[in-house]
């Protein structure tokens, strides 16, 4: 029985570890400035937790096999523990866990504590059951007023976010259903929701943030690779949660300017 347990526990451990190590299913290729730091912290955590995982599980399998009761087993050591050992593994674990955490803290600070760089591209993201809308403030750099009474999700676009046409600042606002971002520019995101909580998740950009009704949450990110990236809603928002997806097109500054100008032109 001890041997059967050893084999099962070892098999589970090694197969599980293989798929983590082989990265058969792993983080998608990253395309934002934060990728390097985040992926490095992932790798570090994987190595440390992986060592503990292997040691604990393989050790468990070994112990149950090695110390199965046999007719000729020597008497068990009559011990109630060892204070020095307890102190040792308490201190080691505390140093390891808290140290690991502190190593990741600067990345978190750079993502969430620091404000966006000066000159960042402003984009407002609005979530509603079950679509994402993106608003660009236009040449004036100011978002026009919106009003809940004007919100009409069935019409889409400006009407969906309730843009108030009587506000001068709203004249040049562009509202789209697809997100365009210039490459290598910091983006100043403003996240909002009109109905329930949604979460703006772009795995390739290593970005996630809930959009909460009543809050205007400011975040920043910097895409670094031109390409198309999928958005998935990550907070349960109702029956259409699974299909609340969207696209981010990261393009060159030139293409971005052209695209935005074309949208402005359509609007006039």
């Amino acid at each position: 029985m001890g041997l059967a347990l050893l084999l099962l526990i070892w098999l589970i451990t090694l197969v599980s570890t293989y798929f983590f190590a082989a990265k058969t299913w792993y983080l998608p290729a990253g395309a934002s400035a934060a990728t390097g730091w985040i992926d490095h912290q992932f790798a570090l955590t994987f190595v440390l937790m992986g060592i503990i995982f292997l040691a604990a599980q393989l050790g468990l399998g070994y112990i149950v096999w090695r110390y199965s009761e046999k007719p000729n087993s020597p008497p068990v050591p009559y011990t109630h523990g060892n204070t020095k050992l307890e102190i040792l593994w308490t201190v080691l674990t505390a140093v390891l866990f808290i140290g690991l955490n502190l190593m990741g803290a600067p990345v978190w600070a750079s993502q969430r504590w620091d404000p966006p760089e000066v000159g960042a591209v402003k984009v407002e993201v609005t979530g509603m059951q079950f679509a994402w809308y993106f608003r660009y403030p236009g040449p004036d750099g100011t978002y026009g007023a919106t009003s809940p009474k004007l919100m009409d999700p069935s019409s889409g676009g400006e009407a969906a976010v309730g843009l108030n046409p009587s506000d001068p600042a709203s004249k040049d606002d562009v509202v789209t259903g697809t997100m365009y971002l210039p490459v290598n520019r910091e983006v100043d995101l403003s996240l909002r929701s009109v109905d329930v909580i949604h979460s703006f998740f772009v795995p390739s950009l290593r970005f996630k943030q809930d959009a909460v009704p009543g809050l205007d949450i400011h975040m920043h990110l910097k895409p670094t690779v031109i390409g198309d990236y999928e958005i998935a809603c990550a907070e349960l928002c109702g029956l259409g949660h699974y299909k609340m997806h969207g696209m981010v097109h990261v393009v060159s500054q030139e293409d971005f300017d052209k695209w935005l100008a074309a949208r402005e032109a359509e609007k006039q």
Partner: protein
Amino acid sequence: MAGGTGGGETVMATPVALHAHAAPQGFIRKYIFSLDHKVIGLQYYFLALTAVFVGMFLSLLMRIHMIWPTAVLPIVGEIKPETYLSLLTMHGTIMVFFVLTTAPQGGFGNYILPIQIGAPDMAFPVLNMLSFWTTFVGFVVIIAAFFVTGGAPLHGWTGYPPLSAVQSAGPGEGLGADLWVTSIAIFCIASLMGALNFITTTLDLRAKGMTMMRMPLTCWSWFITAILGLLAFGVLLSAGILLLLDRNMGTSFYVPLVVVNGQVMGHKGGSPLLWQHLFWFFGHPEVYIAILPGMGVTSQILSTFSRKPIFGYKAMVYAMLAIGFFGFMVWGHHMFMSGMSPYSAFAFSILTMCIGVPSAIKTFNWLGTMWKGHIRFQTPMLYAIGFVSLFVSGGLSGPFLAQPVLDIQLHDTYFVVGHFHLIMGVAAIFGIFAATYYWFPKMFGRMMNETWGRIHFFITLAGTYAIFMPMHYLGLAGQTRRYSQFTEVAYQAKLIPLQTFMTYAAIITIAAQFIFVINLFWSMFKGPKASDNPWEATTLEWTTTTPPPHDNFGGRTPVVNHGPYEYGVPGAPRDYVMQTDPATLPAH
């Protein structure tokens, strides 16, 4: 603990005098509205057994729908996306409240705690009966949510407003959601009554010589769980009442001005994050409410079946106390992506890492207990070993999720689902299985079948790993949880083969649970008769007859002379010294 006489420790009140009620005669007072903690424990256990089969059936339907979305099933019919979300909500709620909170504490705690401390019953038998029947009402109310217009709610077991607070936010958010909140509120009341009873019983009804530091670790785990319950359920109860008011009375505790389906709702100025704070202030300690009794029973069984004293008894007690203490300071790690201040995220993250330390201490001590032991592989031991393995696997994904910077990628993905299922789901369930196989002889006077117990164990261990380990890979790849289908997002569609594998693993594992149920009921009537102490264990429940009489010790009052895990004592006549053995024996 030294000397074996209890020394200068305070001697507790005489338990016999407190046992006011006589053995009941009629069927109803004996088995339905019983005051006997043993009957009430079994009532809790069978309620949880019913609930776990309901919850497991719901998960089976979910797994089938994810892979074969158009399948038309007998009885249930076709599962629509909103049906899927209802199944998910009810699966989570039923499992967390009516299984993981009910069986380890209400079931085994009720049955075993008084006997293990040498008491004739719980401190408040009427309150005990009331808390069971209140729990029962809560269960009936939540099941009723399936059958009302609109069906069960779809807002998930976490019930985040505004989705859970605005009736027009989705199907099931009408009467179904009201029943859901009401059921949880009823459950909270029942748990508060239970918690008071457990705490009082532990503090006041210990037999002579049963000092706190001589209590079995199971008693410590039930005691600490009760304290957590007392502090956590009151908060959830209040939060639930506020949610009911928001839903039905036009208040705005949780809902700001929102526009749902183009309609401006009447709410103004509420905070969706307030609910998350209140919910997780309960929700995180709840994780420990589910797992602490499993830790207790694992310690008990590892020591008994390794024929060795538990390694580091005091460290185990302090670790559980530390887990309980830190458990109330880490709730914000569920909210790193919620819009909560990123500065507080940093603090919650460090505190969460701290809670990993006592968890690691427990694991080291379990391995230390088995080290150089004489391990016997009866089914309870297999499940205790399985618990350790699952606790390690589920625990080590914690330091990933505790780091906000990694949580950017992992939050609300299958990585989280895999993490909490392994640790608070399956590990806790393994604790329940271990406890069932271990105490069954005492509870029913017969032995369970060993062969079928082992078969059940091996399929369940391999099966649960096959279901939940791949969830970590899926989460890393960005698979979001609570999606009824994965066909709409291109990168997620690529992950469907792994989901299919998990569905097959789930079908096999669920099928294997019938082995357990058949073994349970068959052994209850046909199993070989059990002796009073079939595992050669040391704690007080093994000193009384099998099953125990109405007052637990047949008019005797046990006197405790030794610690709870005295195995392999040099110079003792047997390889174990029971807690009530004469103080002259060489054990602690």
